[in-house]
Structures are given as structure tokens and as C-alpha cells.
């Protein structure tokens, strides 16, 4: 072994520098959370922070960053460098959100980027992204369905300078604030993003002092390259071949149904290629994706299947070659609406995992609930006379796995947001939660069964309310793997005062719920893994004694007489 040459960093120094960079990204993340105004950032932590290199490559992302934000940051940087190439000055801060011209994924996610200089030389960018609770448009929250153009979804911001050499561009900022609801809260959140950029700048300068900006710059490339190598070595362990899979989205809420997503994955040596040709044309409803969001879903799938602990940086994005025809659901043309991209991201992940299951059967999971089931209750609180909007997203079943059952009632893949306690809901809103439980029999049978969906029963108290929702896998069951059976679908029901149940649409809008009536939300379960007749006796016994499955179901799905 030869002595490491002075120009390359040894693995010890690199680990120490990389540890320092992770601290910078994490501290910026916490600073943004601490100084934000809105609950969405402070409590649900719907934000991310990162350090990018001068070429716009993602070097380090804060540990708690969200998978969907990964590609949005690189998308912003690509647009920024293209537009401002040699007009990037110390003290500038760039802002952007538009999916069609500025690399975003949907309008509420607003990106910021601040160039960091050392001795007049551009060394890095401090970037962050935050989901704003409202960005204008037709409906409060800027996430509602039923719209067919991005103009209706909110304010579009191309890449522009919010600060020029340290000076806030007041006229621009006023314009941004005038176009949103609750502008004071937005102002606070924007300043939290600005503070996070500036904190990152100070911390990076401290690191430059300790290690030298040249060494840090060198570390960037090395970190990215090592991550790529690490992921490539995992791909090299997959058998060469062409793997295909196809699935459908239920509907777009505006008439299109059974919308296909199709992938052909080619593994050759340490290279991997994803071809989404054959997927649906873009749709009228808001479930479209721009290219960056599709890339983020692919990156998530690769990381989750092959190496969950691989650092989240450009090195991951560099590895796959991704082919997506323009004008499709997965790379929609302007002016397609995109607000509800998360449901489609979930389905891309299902499709990628479904295809690669043949290549890595031990890591693959059967289809999970494949959704981001959303329920929105709104009305006028009879106690205060004020309007309220209560929005929740519910988890469901997780797919069966090679070594164990799928988890019951949990957020899956691209999302991991928490529920609101029943004791908070009933205290803050004029609503009553009558039940919160698993959906019996909704986990697909298998050697390792799929997880169960969730059920919530909610009713208005002392007033009539309005219900809207968005469900996926409400028309198509989550599939099983390697002989495992399908899981149950989700559904929305209206329950009348006399107990009669009326099934609602998959994406219902403006449903009246009177006092004494209720809404029953049931989310999808998940598919099973492996043939049902290989299920271990003790697992089957647990299915029975736990009461998660009925005797009829067990009899119908498992060959042995389960009721014994």
C-alpha cells in the first residue's frame, strides 16, 4: 500500500470533515425549525436543509430531510446556474418554487439557496426547502384537488434573487406576501429560511478555518464519488437482466381512471437504467409529477432496497439512468397541476420495487397501502363562531417481507408524518372520534402477511361540517409478492343518522355531514409475501387469537382449517 498523496484526502480526515458538514446541515435544519412560525414546519418538520457544491451537486443533506425534497434542491440549482451563471455574488439569496421552470415539485415547497464564498471564490451553496401552509391559489392550503392548471394552485416563483449582495428586495418580497393567505405567518417562515442560510454560512466559514476551503471543496467531490461507488457496488451484486412491472393509479379526480405507470429496469454490471416509457400521458387532475419528483422516488427506492444507510447526496442521484417521455404523468408539461404528487410518488415506488423484486427478493416488499390517504373536515366551530379546517393524512398496511409480516397501520415510503392525538382533535375542533382501529381482514395472506389498514370514525358535534378526501388504492388492491395474496382496498363512507352507509367517491369533494352523521375512513392494507400455505402455524395462530382476521377469512385464504 502506498502512502496517500497529499492532494487526496485520507478516509480519516474525510470522515471528520464529512462529520462537520453533517453538523452544519443538521444545525441549519434545527435553526429553520426553531425560528419558523407555522406548525407545519415546527411540528411536522416538513422541511429540509443541504449543502450543495458550486456545480449544483448535492453534497450533504440534514439527517431529518425528506426524500421528496432531494431532487427539488438539485432542480433549483440547475435552474439557478443556468440563469445566473456568472451573476452570483456574495450576500445573494435565491428563491424559487415553480415545478415547470425552476426545478420544484409542487408550489407550497419553497426553495432558497445562498452562495458561500471564501476569499472571493465560490465554494458552496447553503440550501433549504420548506413546505408553506399556503402559497395562494384557489383553495386554502394550496393542495386541493379539482383544478386543471398550475395557475390555480398558487403563486409561481421562478429563480429570482430575494437578496442582492445582502440587500432584501422589498418589492419582490411584498409581491410574494400579497399573494398568499396569512402573510404574517409566511413572512416568519421565509425569515426562518433566510436565518438557516445565514447560520449555515457562518458554520461553513468555521469549517474553512479549521480544514481550509480547498480541502473542504475537495471533500465534496470525494464524498459524492464514494457514495456513487458504494451504491454501484450494491447494484453490481444484483443479477444482470431486464425487469418489468406495471401498476395503475385509481383516478385523478377529474374523470381519468386506471392510469398506468410502467417501468422497465435494466441492470448490467454496476449500471442501472429505468425506462418509464409506456406510462400514462399527463392527466387533467393534480396527480402529475415533474421530472425531479420522479427522480426523487427512484432514488428513494434504490436507497431503501439496496442500502438504507447510504448518505443521501448527488452520488445516489448520479447512479441511475432515468428515461421518462415528456408530457407523461411522470414528467408533465406546463401547465399541468401537480399539488397531489405524493400519491403518484408512492405508486412509482411500488412499481420499482415490484420490478426489482426478482433481482433482490430478500429486500423487496409486497405493495404497501400505496397512498397518502387524506381526510379534510371543515366548518364553523359552534363554540367560537370561527372557521376551522382539520386535515389529516393516514397510514395503512405495509407490505409483507421476506422475513416478517408487514407492519399494521403505518406511514410508508415517501411519507412519515405523525397522526394528531384524539385528545388534541376533540379539544381543538368540534369533532368526535368514535373509533381508531385496524381494518379487520385487510392484510393480504402470505407466508408473511401484509399489514392492516387503519379505520377512523369521525363526526361533527353541535354543527354540520364538510368532508373532502383523497384516496388511492381505493379501486385496485395492493398486490402480493411471490405468491402472496392481495391486501384490502381503502374506502370512504358516509354514515347516516340511522346508521345507513353510503360509499363515497375515491376523491370526494364537499360532502355535507350533519350532526348525528359520521364519516368512516378506511385506508388500504397491504399485500402478502410468499404463498399462504407456507405460513407458519404459530403465525396463523396469532392471526386468529389477535382477532385481526376473521375465521371466515382465515378459512378462505389458508388451506389448513384455521378455525380449529
Amino acid at each position, binding site marked *: 500500500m502506498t502512502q496517500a498523496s497529499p492532494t487526496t484526502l485520507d478516509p480519516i*480526515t474525510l470522515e471528520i470533515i464529512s462529520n462537520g458538514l453533517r453538523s452544519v446541515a443538521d444545525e441549519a435544519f434545527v435553526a429553520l425549525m426553531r425560528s419558523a412560525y407555522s406548525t407545519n414546519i415546527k411540528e411536522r418538520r416538513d422541511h429540509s436543509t443541504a449543502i450543495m457544491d458550486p456545480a449544483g451537486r448535492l453534497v450533504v443533506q440534514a439527517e431529518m430531510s425528506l426524500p421528496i425534497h432531494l431532487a427539488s434542491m438539485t432542480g433549483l440549482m440547475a435552474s439557478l446556474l443556468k440563469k445566473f451563471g456568472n451573476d452570483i455574488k456574495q450576500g445573494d439569496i435565491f428563491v424559487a418554487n415553480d415545478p415547470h421552470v425552476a426545478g420544484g415539485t409542487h408550489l407550497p415547497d419553497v426553495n432558497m439557496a445562498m452562495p458561500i464564498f471564501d476569499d472571493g471564490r465560490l465554494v458552496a451553496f447553503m440550501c433549504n426547502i420548506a413546505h408553506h401552509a399556503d402559497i395562494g391559489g384557489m383553495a386554502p392550503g394550496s393542495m386541493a384537488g379539482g383544478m386543471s392548471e398550475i395557475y390555480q394552485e398558487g403563486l409561481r416563483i421562478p429563480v429570482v434573487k430575494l437578496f442582492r449582495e445582502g440587500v432584501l428586495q422589498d418589492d419582490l418580497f411584498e409581491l410574494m406576501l400579497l399573494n398568499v393567505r396569512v402573510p404574517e405567518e409566511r413572512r416568519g417562515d421565509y425569515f426562518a429560511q433566510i436565518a438557516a442560510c445565514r447560520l449555515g454560512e457562518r458554520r461553513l466559514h468555521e469549517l474553512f478555518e479549521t480544514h481550509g476551503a480547498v480541502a473542504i471543496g475537495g471533500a465534496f467531490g470525494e464524498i459524492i464519488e464514494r457514495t456513487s461507488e458504494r451504491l454501484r457496488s450494491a447494484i453490481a451484486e444484483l443479477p444482470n437482466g431486464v425487469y418489468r412491472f406495471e401498476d395503475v393509479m385509481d383516478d385523478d379526480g377529474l374523470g381519468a381512471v386506471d392510469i398506468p405507470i410502467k417501468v422497465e429496469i435494466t441492470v448490467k454490471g454496476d449500471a442501472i437504467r429505468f425506462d418509464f416509457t409506456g406510462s400514462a400521458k399527463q392527466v387533467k387532475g393534480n396527480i402529475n409529477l415533474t421530472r425531479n419528483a420522479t427522480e426523487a422516488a427512484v432514488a428513494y427506492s434504490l436507497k431503501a432496497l439496496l442500502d438504507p444507510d447510504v448518505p443521501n447526496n448527488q452520488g445516489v442521484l448520479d447512479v441511475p439512468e432515468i428515461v421518462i417521455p415528456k408530457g407523461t404523468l411522470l414528467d408533465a408539461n406546463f401547465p399541468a397541476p401537480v399539488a397531489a404528487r405524493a400519491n403518484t410518488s408512492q405508486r412509482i415506488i411500488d412499481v420499482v420495487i415490484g420490478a426489482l423484486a426478482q433481482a433482490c427478493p430478500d429486500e423487496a416488499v409486497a405493495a404497501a397501502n400505496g397512498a397518502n390517504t387524506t381526510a379534510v373536515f371543515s366548518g364553523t366551530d359552534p363554540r367560537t363562531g370561527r372557521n376551522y379546517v382539520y386535515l389529516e393524512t393516514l397510514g395503512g398496511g405495509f407490505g409483507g*417481507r421476506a422475513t416478517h409480516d408487514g407492519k399494521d*397501520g403505518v406511514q410508508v415510503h415517501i411519507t412519515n408524518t405523525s397522526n394528531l392525538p384524539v385528545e388534541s382533535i376533540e379539544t381543538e375542533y368540534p369533532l368526535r372520534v368514535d373509533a381508531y382501529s385496524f381494518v379487520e381482514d385487510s392484510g393480504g395472506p402470505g407466508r408473511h402477511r401484509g399489514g392492516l389498514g387503519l379505520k377512523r370514525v369521525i363526526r361533527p358535534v353541535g354543527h354540520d361540517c364538510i368532508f373532502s378526501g383523497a384516496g388511492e388504492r381505493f379501486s385496485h388492491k395492493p398486490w402480493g409478492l411471490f405468491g402472496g395474496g392481495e391486501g384490502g382496498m381503502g374506502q370512504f363512507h358516509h354514515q347516516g343518522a340511522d346508521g345507513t352507509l353510503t360509499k363515497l367517491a375515491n376523491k370526494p369533494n364537499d360532502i355535507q355531514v350533519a350532526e348525528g352523521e359520521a364519516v368512516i375512513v378506511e385506508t388500504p392494507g397491504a399485500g402478502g409475501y410468499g404463498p399462504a400455505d407456507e405460513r407458519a402455524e404459530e403465525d396463523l395462530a396469532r392471526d386468529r387469537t389477535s382477532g385481526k382476521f376473521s375465521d371466515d377469512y382465515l378459512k378462505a385464504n389458508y388451506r389448513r382449517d384455521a378455525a380449529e
Partner: protein
Amino acid sequence: MPWLIGIDVGGTFTDFYALNTADGDVRLFKRPSTPANPAEAIVLGLRDMMDATGIAPADVARLSHGTTVATNALIQRRGGKVALITTEGFRDLIEIGRQTRPHMFSLQIDSPAPLVEREHRFEIAERVLADGSVETPLEDNAIEAAVGEALGAGAEAVAVSFLFAYANPVHEAEVGAALRRATNAVPVSLSSEVQPEFREFERTSTTVLNAYLQPVMDRYLGYLESEIANLLPGLNVGIYQSSGGLMSLETARAFPVRSALSGPAAGVVGAIHTARQSGRPNIITFDLGGTSADVALIRNYDAGVSFDREVAGFPVRLPMVDIHTVGAGGGSIAWFDRDGLLKVGPISAGADPGPACYGQGGDQPTVTDANLILGRLSPGGLVGGDMPLDTELARGAFAPIAERLGFSVEHTAHGALGILVANIVRAIRTVSVEKGHDPRDYALTAFGGAGALHAGEVARSLGVTEIIVPFAPGILCAQGLIVSDLKEDFVHSARIALDGQFAAEIAPAFADLTARADEWFEAQGIDPDARALTVALDMRYIGQNFELPVVLGHGNGSGRPTLPSPDDLRERFFATHTQHYGFHNPDDAVEVVNLRLTATGALRHAAAAPKPATAGPPKPSAHRSVFFDPNAAVETPIYDRAVLSAGTEIVGPAIIEQLDATTLVHPGDTARVEDALNILITVAA
């Protein structure tokens, strides 16, 4: 009866710290732990210590005990069989939790399964609303049915948790009474007694954990109590709790979950005691053991309290000393990750086989091996110890890594320690910088077996200029036990807006908490002038879903704390909000969600510091080559701490060895032995 005895049970050793409050005399004692029944080592050790030191049974005033029995029972899943009785429609709530998964990218890792099987969760028709009113009354025959089912299922403990029981505990109380009528043999945990606060999942989880631990702790404490009664009749015994105070044996048996995170808390209390002796109110505690490092930030001799912690993957919402833990310790293994970067920890060689240099069959390179290679640890092992360390085995373990890096073994070992330090620095930044505190304003208090070996490098990386090394860093937890007070936390959970009605609405709750605290003081036999009450309010902006603790003044002795006016409270909330988040919004409405009262019964503590050892100028006991720099060793004097008297100053490079720890003094740094025999190291600029 001048002697106080602290007993801290660790995985390997059970430590005894005895203090004579009359003359400040200190006796330290250690014996191997007996994991199968930890009480054995306690009883045997107590007997041996009293024999060896001549402490007469009649001279022992109190025994304070820190136990990991609850923690270990959780980690090893050795608790009792639990049944849960809960509100109709909600038996799955304990399993759904917050519907999140513990690892964003792993398809395989789940949150742990609940400690109560689904078929042992029994629903009962009843419903209390947010305001405490009863919507669905509890019927007697329903109680009877649920009690019959729970006991019929063979439960060894029963947890009862109903929605909104914190607002109105009447239904839980009725079911609890019915269970106790039915049998004395099965302990009962009511959520309204274990943790009467809103957020049903966290409250139910804490209650189920408590029930799960009851059978185990009942057996353990029962045995301990009877054995100690034989040895030291009539002795007062205190059990350590996670909030950093002692509780009675009776309380510990009713609420075992309170001891589940108590281990590191005692060390923090010991470090605060040391900080007082040094007159340094602001410290960062740094406890480095075999597998993990615990760090905490102390302001004005006060440890922060956290309410949201996990034990063995389960949320526990109880007051706990705010400690951040990372997997970095003497046993941490150096390894190459898949991207070729060198990592240290969190995998640990543990106690068995332990680091390679122990010669017990370990062949992985660890932090302890690196310290030995660099001359920082003595090949003779710890002072007075009988376990020499094998440098050749340590070098052999590091050789493959060194070869892959193309570095010398010393350079590699030095690099591994650099990575360990970077991990610890990151943890300290989490408790300081990320919470708005500049570590440069704090002294670093280094303890645990290995804290003082690495404190110099940790301090330099953070810009910290002072390091305190306590008198007995390896058994600071046992010392912390005897300087702790009796403590009990009371909480009333209710949303009360800061408006015109505030004073009238909060008064009954406050009176109720104060009355309960008085009852507790009486029951514990605490003198009126030793009583103290601290009031804290969890407050938030209306509409937000996270609250901040606003700590109000203390009321000492017979003086009673009073609640400030709503305007004053609002100002205090704004100040707290600004401290935590950097801003506040003066126009938004504010509310209180929890009212907390902490009762402290001061116990008799050390009057005097440990006596200084024999005086005299410091003479090194030996010299050896030590690598401070990766490429060059320097001849370094070694001192025996036992002979260093107060006032001694040593300029580094130097190594100070003692029974339970090794202190590294870097070149140019100055170590001074303080009056209380703690060492204060001033880091060279």
C-alpha cells in the same frame, strides 16, 4: 448516624460511595455485579464494605440506590404479562402509536410490538369528553366483565387507560377499585395516576410500561428490602428516579417506570455537585463509559428536564433529566463503512470479549486499544487493578486498518480517536448550539471511566477552555446518589387560556396540587424547613401543538409559591419562546396546557469535602512515551492521583492515573487540584 451510602449497580461492577457527613470522610468500594439478582451484590458488598471500613450498622443514616433492573427488564423483554382495559373503539391505539416508522429508508425495521398482546386488551363502553364531562357512563356489569376477562387471561399486572382520564379519572378509579377488590396479587396501573397528561398514546404507553415492570420490580425491591432490613434494621432507603431525585421504596414499587432512565441521571447530579464545589454554575457533562457517551447541558447548576424520551423503543412521557446519548465509548469498534470511510462505533466490543488488549478473545480494534497504542493508557491497566492490558494484541487489531490506510499503527489509532471525538462533539453541539447555547461559555465536566482521556480534544474542538475532572470520575453516579434529594412531580393537565377568567380557572387546580404536595411531604416525614416547591407551566400559542415549559420561582420552607398574573405569565412565556426560538409574537393568544409542581425534600448532605491527601510537591511515579500528535511521541510523566494534594499544579504533557479513571493533560494545558480534590484543567490558548 453520620454515614450516607450511595449504591450504583452497573453491568460489570456495583459501586459503593460512602460519605461521613460529620467529618467528610469518603470510602469507595467496588464489587462485581450479580446480574441474575442485582440485590445480591448490594447485600454482599454492603457487608464487605462495612467489615473493611469499620462502619457500624448503627452509623448508617441512609442508603440511596440507583437501579437498572427496570431498564434491563425492558431491553430484555422480561417484564410481566400485562392486560389493558381501555375505551371502546380504541384497543388498537397502543399498537398504532403515532403511525410513524423509526427509520425513513429501511423497509425492514419496525417500531417494537406493544408489550400487551391484542387479545389481552379489553374494551369497555365508557366515554369522558375533553372538558371532563361523562358522555357514556360506566356500567357496573361492564366493569365486572372487563375485570373478569383481564384476570381470567392470566394477567400478572393490569393497566387501565381511558380517553381523557387526565381530565376526569373517575372511570379509571372505579375499574381500579374493582380490580383491587377482586385480587391483591395483581398490581394495577392507572393512566391517571402514572401520568395524568393529555396525548393518549404516550400516556397509555407509559402506563403499560409501568404495569409491565411492576411484577419484576416488586420482586426485586421486596427481596432487597427484606435483606437490608436484616443487615441494617430500620434503614431509610431511597430509589433513584429519572427526574434526578430519590423516591421511597413504596413509590418505586407503585411506579417502577420512573426508574427506567435513572442510570445516567445520577451522574449528572454528581457532576452538578462537583460544579458547585468548583464554583462553575454552567457546565456540559460528558460521561464516557464502555459503550456510550452521555452529555447534558447544565445552566446555573440546573439540569434541563425533558418529557419526551424513549426506553427500548417505547415512548415514556415522564420528567427526566435531559441527556443526549451517542454510541461512543471505550469499547467502540473502528471499522470501514461501505463507502470506505473510517467509522468508530456505535458497534461495541462490550465487556465480553471486550477490547483486543483485554486478551479475552476480542480481535476488533477499539477505542481502548487505540489509547493503549498511543501510550495514553498504562499497559499495567488501572491503578490497583489486576488486569494488565496487552499492547501487542491492540496493535495486532489495528494493523489491518493501518495497512489499508497506508498509515502507521499510531497514526491510525490517533485518527480513530479523532473520529470518536468528532462524534462526541456532534452530540454536545446538539445539546448546546442547537438549543441556542454557546459551548464556549461552559466548562466541560468529564467523568465515566474514559471521559478524562478525551476531554482535552473535545474541549479544543468546541472552544471550551476549562475541564473539571471530579475526584472519583468512575463512580460519580454513586456519588450523585448521596447528594440527591427526595423528589415528587405533580401535574394537572387542562387547557386554560390566559384571559380574564384565567386566575379563577387555575386556582382550584393549583390548590389541589399544593394539597397533594403537602400530603406527600407529611407522608415522607420531611421537616417544614427542608421543603421546596417549584412551579412550571407548559404554555403555547393557541392553535399550536407544541408547548414550552415556563419555570416559575421556588417557594421554600413554609413559603408558598404563588401564581403570577396572566400578564406577567404572558411576558414570561414570550421570554421563554424567544430563548428557544429566537422570536415571539406579542399579538397572538396564549394558553396553559399543563400545570406542574415539583416537591423537593432536602436531605442531609455532605458538610465537608473529602480530606486532602498527604501534602507534598507532585512527583511522577513513572514516565512513558505518549502520542499526543499522530506522528511523534513525547516522554510524559505519570502521576498517581491519590497522592496529589489540593493546590498542586501540573503543566502538560502529563497523565494522572487513579483507581477508576485516567486523565490526560495535553502539552501546555495546566491541571490544578482544587480544595475538594477535583482537578481543574485550563486548556492552553
